[in-house]
């Protein structure tokens, strides 16, 4: 979603070549190592956009004997789409969390110590936080502020994860005492009447 | 250490108002102590300049222990002592001159108020002194009658030249003497010697064949040898004589000493109060800076560094305060001296010069000022050094709570009060002064036990007053929550008021006594007053002629006279002996008896009996019935005490009354120095007035006063004196105001954050202001209640102690109490104004941030 909208936004600025778009995107997010976008992704996205009529292409005759390249430009429909995107909030990322699965598994199966699981996760998060912090410290706020902002965002996410870990750890004993939610074994065939009643 | 001083200075600078108030306390103590102690030496010096004859170049001066006269034959005892170069016997008498006697100009103030009449043997005296007679004149010669040698300065004052006559008072009325020689002008004004022959001097003073001074020059300057010779001389003369300077007026000195003790007690109390204020300030300072101190400790400051830091602040304040106190004290002394000049001139007839400041006094005042400041800072400083570095790390500021073991302090307080009462019973003036302070400390220690109930009662009252705001309860709650701080604050008021009420009780009682005495002692129709009515020895009296002349006036009834002799007991303790006529004295004048009754008068006529006053009893510890041995010019004589009584004029001087017959027999004194007489019943004042005034004209040393008018004059004077005392009281109330203001301001500062909180939760400025005011008035009430109780008690005990000396009974100082309550509450309200404003104007946000 964000790459698609980024392309629309960059094309709204002025029409661009495909490779030019990729470079512009990278400088926008602060570097290829931060948000690596493959050329293929750019071109498939452009193709999809063109399909939807949000972008149109013109061929640019190269100077001299250079081969012609496609130049992408935004259509009025694309501009409308972009405007709508600016005006709506970004959907929060879905909470499909691998660690959560790990923790719940360790709690329900008992084949790992949940506390150790938490500790391991915390170590990992701190290591990440340490690395990002170091990276952030090495960035120059005069020329790389955008990059710093992105790093800050990561830092804050990790902070939130760490706080959440603390919260879970503090109430680990409580959650252990609660019965692990067992999946309901659904009898084959039609449910009996009282089952339906219970569900309601 | 440099750092400590820097910190101290910066901290003081940061809280200017508080620094000012605290330092003011020191200033005040030093001011009182220094000012008061300037006054006395100045008086003494003036006294000495006026009274004492300069002994010139004389090596040894011999006088009688009693200060009285003795036979010229005593000089015979000196013959044969090795090392004596020359001896001169003389009669030295100070003669007070009535006002305008010399210049006859009432507009100009008198430059010469007394002279020294010196009767000499012209030949002998010139072997000791060199007299530089100015051209044309000569020195005295043996057999000179009515001849006198005076200085140029005295001649100028009299406006006379060589061979002119000058008039001097004598026991036989005015005498005119011819100036035969004039000496160069004296450098020190006011101590004029008038040289006459011994015979002439005897004639003028109504004595026969007596001297009172032997001057001796030695033939060596070697110190050891001289001491040997002096020892030989003393051995030859016996214990009744002493070698040294002429000691006139030691009674006066004793009187002044007692005054000084009282003034010093006053100053000590003021300083004590100052110390108290400082203690309180430092207590707050330490709690305020708890975190700073903890941090310094964490950074490696040793305990001693911390103590040093707090004490450095004390030192700075002490030095500043003492310096300001010295300057203000000097001004204060100078002003008092200037104000006292006129009455002193009138009463004891001395003229005072510029204030006398001794380096010792400055040193003592500074030491006391600085010392007390540092001492007061010591407990808080030691407390500060106990602050652990952990305190710096804690986010919340803990209150400095002093270890209060209520039980122990209560018992200690009671013990101190007990000690103070013992001290008062001891009747020793020094101990009484100390006891007053001990008593107050005891009260402060006992106070916490009573605080809660008192605060409760007054709190309820205030709550009633401010029923709607609820601030009364809040104020009361504030008070009972921190009893130690409240006690300290209220104590400041308490001390101030205790002193006021105690002194108020004293003055009321004293003025009652003065009233009685004035009526009794001066109750006659006519009085012949000498220039000085408290230093009898410097007065020239009158011979028997005056009284016999007065008796011839038709309509004159009883005449009573006082005759004076200086005497000594117990070796050298000076006593004033007053000769009275046992028959007429009680009819014209009278004593106020403390022990015995008027039958004692008849006892005086029946042998060597005497009536003594309280000061005498205090000095000798004698009882009625005891016999005391006097050193008289004719050897030791025992007198038996038959009663104890006091008259107005001699209340504070060690005095014994004996019959005039005994005074003449044992002390050779027959001149009347004070005369009182009554007219026969039905005789009008106007009919005798002219005759009496005519007779008195020959005796200018006396001021003739019709008694009744004099009583009025005297009572007015007493009133003036007491209004002076009340002024002093007000003066003492001032530091108590400062103390209260200070402690209240500090209590507001201490609670800055809390007040900010109140404001934040919606208390209006008015409510906060009211709360502080209510608190101040509560504090003042607690202090006032205690202060009045303490003051009543103190005053009563002091008067009880004094009643051993004087015929005095305790008068309940209703006026003083009312004034005390008014002052206490008024000051409480006044003291609240600044802190209340401060509190209500406080910026809420800043207050909450306040650490």
């Amino acid at each position, binding site marked *: 979603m964000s790459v698609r909208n980024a392309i629309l936004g960059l094309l709204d600025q002025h029409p661009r070549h495909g490779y030019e778009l990729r470079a512009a995107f990278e400088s926008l997010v602060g570097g290829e190592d931060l948000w690596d976008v493959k050329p293929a992704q750019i071109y498939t996205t452009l193709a999809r956009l063109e399909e939807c009529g949000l972008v149109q292409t013109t061929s640019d005759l190269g100077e001299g004997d250079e081969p012609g390249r496609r130049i992408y430009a935004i259509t009025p429909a694309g501009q409308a789409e972009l405007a709508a995107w600016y005006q709506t909030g970004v959907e929060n990322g879905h909470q499909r969390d691998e660690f959560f699965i790990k923790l719940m598994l360790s709690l329900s199966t008992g084949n790992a110590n949940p506390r150790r699981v938490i500790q391991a996760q915390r170590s990992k998060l701190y290591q990440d936080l*340490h690395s990002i912090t170091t990276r952030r410290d090495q960035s120059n706020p005069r020329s790389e502020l955008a990059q710093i902002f992105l790093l800050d965002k990561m830092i804050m996410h990790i902070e939130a994860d760490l706080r959440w870990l603390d919260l879970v750890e503090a109430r680990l004993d409580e959650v252990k005492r609660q019965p692990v939610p067992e999946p309901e074994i659904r009898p084959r065939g039609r449910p009996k009447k009282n089952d339906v009643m219970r569900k309601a | 250490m440099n750092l400590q001083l820097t910190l101290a200075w910066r901290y003081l600078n940061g809280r200017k108002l508080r620094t000012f108030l605290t330092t003011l306390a020191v200033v005040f103590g030093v001011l009182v102590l220094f000012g008061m102690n300037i006054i006395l030496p100045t008086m003494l010096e003036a006294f000495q300049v006026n009274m004492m004859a300069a002994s010139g170049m004389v090596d040894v001066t011999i006088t009688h222990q009693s200060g009285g006269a003795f036979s010229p034959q005593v000089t015979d005892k000196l013959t044969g002592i090795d090392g004596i170069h020359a001896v001169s016997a003389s009669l030295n008498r100070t003669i007070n001159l009535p006002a305008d006697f010399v210049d006859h100009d009432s507009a100009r103030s008198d430059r010469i108020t007394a002279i020294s009449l010196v009767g000499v043997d012209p030949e002998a005296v010139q072997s000791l002194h060199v007299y530089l007679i100015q051209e044309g004149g000569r020195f005295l010669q043996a057999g000179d009658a009515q001849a006198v040698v005076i200085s140029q300065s005295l001649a100028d004052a009299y406006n006379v030249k060589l061979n002119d006559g000058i008039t001097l008072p004598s026991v036989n009325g005015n005498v005119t003497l011819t100036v035969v020689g004039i000496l160069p002008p004296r450098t020190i004004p006011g101590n004029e010697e008038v040289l006459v022959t011994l015979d002439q001097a005897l004639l003028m003073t109504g004595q026969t064949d007596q001297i009172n001074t032997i001057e001796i020059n030695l033939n060596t300057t070697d110190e050891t040898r001289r001491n040997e010779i002096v020892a030989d001389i003393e051995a030859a003369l016996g214990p009744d004589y002493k070698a040294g300077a002429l000691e006139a007026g030691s009674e006066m000195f004793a009187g002044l000493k007692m005054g000084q003790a009282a003034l010093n007690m006053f100053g000590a109390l003021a300083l004590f109060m100052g110390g108290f204020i400082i203690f309180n300030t430092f207590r707050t300072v330490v709690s305020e800076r708890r975190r700073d101190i903890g941090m310094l400790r964490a950074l490696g400051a040793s305990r001693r560094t911390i103590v040093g830091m707090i004490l450095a602040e004390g030192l700075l304040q002490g030095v500043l305060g003492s310096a300001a106190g010295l300057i203000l004290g000097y001004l204060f002394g100078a002003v008092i001296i200037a104000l006292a000049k006129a009455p002193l001139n009138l009463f004891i007839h001395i003229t005072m010069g510029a204030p006398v400041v001794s380096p010792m006094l400055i040193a003592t005042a500074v030491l006391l000022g600085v010392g007390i400041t540092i001492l007061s800072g010591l407990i808080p400083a030691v407390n500060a050094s106990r602050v652990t570095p952990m305190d710096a790390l804690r986010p919340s500021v803990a209150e400095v709570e002093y270890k209060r073991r209520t039980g122990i302090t209560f018992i200690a307080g009671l013990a101190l009060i007990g000690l103070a009462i013992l001290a008062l019973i001891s009747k020793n003036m020094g101990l009484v002064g100390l006891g007053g302070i001990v008593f107050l400390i005891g009260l402060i220690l006992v106070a916490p036990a009573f605080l809660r109930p008192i605060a409760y009662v007054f709190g309820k009252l205030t709550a009633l007053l401010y029923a709607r705001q609820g601030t009364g309860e809040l104020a009361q709650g504030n008070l009972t929550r921190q009893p130690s701080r409240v006690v300290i604050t209220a104590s400041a008021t308490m001390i101030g008021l205790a002193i006021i009420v105690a002194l108020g009780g004293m003055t009321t009682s004293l003025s009652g006594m003065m009233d009685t005495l004035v009526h009794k002692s001066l109750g006659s129709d006519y009085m012949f007053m000498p220039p000085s009515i408290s230093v009898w020895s410097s007065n020239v009296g009158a011979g028997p002629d005056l009284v016999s002349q007065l008796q011839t006036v038709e309509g004159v009834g009883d005449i009573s006279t006082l005759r004076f002799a200086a005497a000594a007991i117990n070796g050298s303790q000076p006593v004033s002996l007053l000769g009275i006529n046992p028959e007429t004295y009680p009819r014209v004048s009278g004593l106020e008896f403390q022990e015995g009754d008027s039958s004692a008068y008849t006892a005086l006529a029946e042998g060597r009996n005497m009536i003594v006053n309280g000061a005498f009893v205090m000095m000798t510890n004698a009882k009625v019935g005891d016999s005391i041995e006097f050193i008289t010019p004719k050897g030791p004589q025992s007198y038996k005490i038959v009663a104890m009584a006091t008259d107005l004029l001699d209340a504070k001087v060690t005095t014994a009354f004996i019959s005039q017959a005994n005074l003449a027999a044992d002390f050779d004194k027959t001149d009347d120095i004070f005369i009182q007489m009554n007219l026969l019943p039905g005789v009008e004042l106007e009919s005798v007035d002219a005759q009496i005034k005519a007779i008195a004209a020959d005796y200018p040393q006396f001021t003739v006063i019709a008694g009744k008018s004099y009583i009025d004059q005297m009572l007015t004077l007493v009133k003036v004196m007491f209004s002076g005392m009340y002024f002093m009281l007000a003066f003492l109330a001032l530091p108590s105001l400062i103390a209260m203001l200070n402690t209240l301001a500090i209590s507001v500062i201490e609670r800055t954050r809390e007040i900010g909180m109140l404001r934040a939760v919606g208390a209006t400025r008015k409510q906060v202001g009211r709360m502080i005011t209510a608190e101040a008035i509560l504090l003042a009430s607690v202090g006032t209640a205690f202060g009045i109780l303490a003051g009543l008690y103190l005053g009563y005990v002091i008067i009880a102690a004094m009643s051993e000396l004087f015929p005095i009974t305790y008068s309940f100082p209703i006026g003083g109490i009312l004034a005390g309550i008014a002052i206490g509450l008024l000051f409480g309200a006044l003291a609240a104004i600044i802190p209340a404003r401060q509190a209500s104007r406080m910026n809420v946000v800043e207050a909450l941030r306040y650490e």
Partner: protein
Amino acid sequence: MSIISTQNLTKIYGSGDTAVTALDHVSIEVNAGEFVAVMGPSGCGKSTLLHLLGGLDSPSDGAIAIDGKPIAKMPDNALTELRRRKIGFVFQFYNLIPVLNAVENAALPVTLDGVKPSEAKKRAIEWLNRFGLGDRLNSRPDQLSGGQQQRVAIARALVAEPNLILADEPTGNLDTRASDEIAALLRKVSKEFGRAVVMVTHDPRIAAYADRIIFLKDGSIADETILEPQNGKNAAMVAGMMKEIGD
């Protein structure tokens, strides 16, 4: 060489029924140039540990050695001297003396040690310059921002050239940006100047600046994480992370 070494450090407050074990057999080592963060929920004993390390409080049991010297039984005077010369403190509330300016505050420990005022000032100015406070030398604490005040406090902690810096919630009173600055400064102190830094904090963001995090729980060490210095894997890690966050 280890600057701090503790064995079975135990601190019990109170006695009998009311006894509270604030620290329970804690053994740690901290080396020169190491930056250690101590974390844990409130009441876990992290402040107690710091106080014991600083000689501000004495342990109930166990041993502490600072610079190889045992301090558990040292008398007050010796501890005072130790604090003055071997340990620098940084507090949450900066605790600068309000009436002294930046230089005078920073110079305090050496001034207290009797160093000549001019020399003490010189040293303080050096440190303040290093920390970017060269233009605020004569400012009083109330004229400085929180971050600046804390920098003065760190200069003060270093002025006596101690080997050990103890910081108690040094960023507890600061906003995020100033907190980052202070944490970075403390890291610099350990890396560039080779001091051992022990910092108590509850802020993960700040703890991440350290080389090692010690987690205390109920008075004993619950966990310890060594944070690897940034390495080649880093770029990949960051990129992976972006996948999680971004599209």
